[in-house]
């Protein structure tokens, strides 16, 4: 049985673009093509759909507003998975990565479209709707706080897209975080989990009382730090409880030293 989706975008050519791209995927079927969030609501009232492709910037009711309504539905009500489509929104994209929300950039080619659908299919197979809802809720909570001029809420857990599945990683399990290009590694007691986000994006959302930035590439849980050492070439390292050694840069050495003075 084919998966179903609704495309919601106020521009006609944008909707057509998706319809045409979808033609190559026979296991997907377009349930409706909606020019507004209101129209999408009406369709969702009658039908159960697997995926909602939501343009963010729309007049009157934006894609985010609709996503908020859906994410706030209770767990036993069926909600479609949400993937945002956007022409440009730097801040949103960085946040989407952190919260493992899928998005599609306009314009897109066939490969990216296929990639997006593949990820959605995986989530459907593993019935990861709850993750999707939680991610969207997280993101919207942060956005609302920003809009009110309040501090962004701190994270208690990460939603991470791993190979073959999505998982929840509790912040309390994370000992330190290493940066690796556009990704970070969340280092726990027994694993290193790759997460698509930058270290700075992660740092903003963690409690500075718990975590300390020691290097451009490292964010360390304060309690994990055992000792500060100087290495042969004059650079610094901290030794962690788990046995890891983490680099410390000139900029952050003082902050690390302050750690030892606190105890």
């Amino acid at each position, binding site marked *: 049985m084919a998966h179903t989706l609704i495309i919601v975008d*106020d*521009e006609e050519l944008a909707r*057509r*673009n998706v319809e*045409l791209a979808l033609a190559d995927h026979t296991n997907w079927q377009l349930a409706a093509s909606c020019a507004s969030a209101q129209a999408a609501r009406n369709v969702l009232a009658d039908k159960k759909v697997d995926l909602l492709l939501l343009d963010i910037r729309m*007049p*009157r009711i934006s894609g985010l507003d609709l996503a908020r309504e859906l994410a706030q539905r209770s767990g036993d009500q069926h909600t479609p998975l949400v993937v945002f489509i956007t*022409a*440009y929104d730097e801040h949103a994209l960085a946040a989407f990565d952190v919260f493992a929300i899928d998005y599609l950039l*306009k314009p897109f080619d066939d490969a990216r479209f296929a990639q997006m659908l593949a990820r959605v299919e995986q989530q459907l197979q593993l019935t990861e709707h709850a993750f999707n809802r939680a991610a969207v809720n997280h993101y919207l909570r942060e956005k609302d706080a920003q809009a009110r001029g309040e501090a962004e809420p701190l994270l208690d857990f990460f939603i991470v897209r791993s190979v073959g599945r999505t998982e929840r990683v509790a912040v309390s399990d994370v000992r330190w975080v290493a940066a690796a290009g556009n990704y970070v590694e969340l280092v726990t007691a027994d694993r290193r989990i790759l997460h698509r986000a930058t270290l700075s994006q992660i740092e903003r959302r963690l409690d500075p009382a718990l975590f300390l930035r020691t290097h451009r590439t490292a964010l360390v849980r304060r309690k994990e730090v055992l000792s500060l050492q100087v290495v042969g070439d004059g650079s610094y390292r901290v030794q962690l409880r788990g046995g890891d050694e983490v680099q410390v840069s000139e900029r952050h050495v003082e902050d690390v030293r302050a750690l030892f003075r606190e105890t």
Partner: protein
Amino acid sequence: MTDLPSSPALRHTAHLAPLRSLLAVMLVWGLIALMLALAMYSDELRKGRDVQFGRAVVVSCGWFLPLVLLNWAGLALFDRHPRLLRPQAIFLIYLPVALLIFPLFLVYETAMNLFTAGRSFDNLLSVLAEQSRYAWWMDFTIVSAAYGIQVAYSIWRQHRQQEQALRDSAHHNLQLRLTLLQGQLEPHFLFNALNSISSLVRSDERQRANAALVQLSELLRYALRASRNGELSLDDELAFTRDYLALQQLRFGARLQLDWQRDPQLDGSRNFPPLLLQPLVENAIRHGLETHDGGMRLSIAVHADQDQLRICISNSLSEPGAPANGHGVGLALTRERLHLLFGPRARLVARGEAAAYTVELSLPAESTKHGAHTDHR
């Protein structure tokens, strides 16, 4: 929309703080008084007379008090009315200084001398008349010199302020250009336009896709030329606006209706400030079309009216009396540019009516210079 840098032309130049200028004048005259006191003191000492230095200082400060007031008033006057710093005005103001203030100063000096000598003021005037003409001449020279030096200082100060204003204006103009450019290459519009073209390619509508690609590249080309400070014509600007609107029509389809009017006798090759119309047209779309599901009619009319060029951009509103907020930044930007380029000879009027929102521009007919140094007096 990016933040608008505030224009130095529209800000007040910093005025002299009255208390600080008084203290400065007092300091200068105080030093002169001090030197005079030293001179007098040394003279008296050599004559063998017993004199206290402190008293000498107080007395000489007292002498110069009117000059302190004169200079302080002069500084304040020329600071508030810099237009007076012209030869005729300077001379005209000098006349009362020479004819009124100088005699008063003489009387004051005589009175002071009588006072310090402990004599009465009864025959003040006769004492005054008996003073040596040399002393009169000295006083006259001192008063004139005080005035002259203060005027010179005011001129110097004004010159510095003008230079700074010119620098600020040039810098500001540059920032305006960059802001405009950022608006032109507004990412949301750009990527949506590209997405529309992507759709045309998918549906194999080669003609339309290519036409749109060409329009988009024309936009970028124009924006690049504009950023290089080139001289661009009215025709160029209208062509740009057409291409821009054509791409918007690609996005919105039948929702966007256009209506062009142009005076056939208008000379399109005349110079025109590049990208002047773009923020206004973008506003119309943003507030007249993107805010609701329906359609919008956008009319652009270009007319010559004697020596003025008149451009009228009007868009229909979905709700009557839709507020003009949000138009604010685009309008402010355009007003600023017009002011920088033409001063009071250009006007921008925005009207929000029941069914439509209209912006009217009028520009002087002669060619514009692109840059901050247009003289608008």
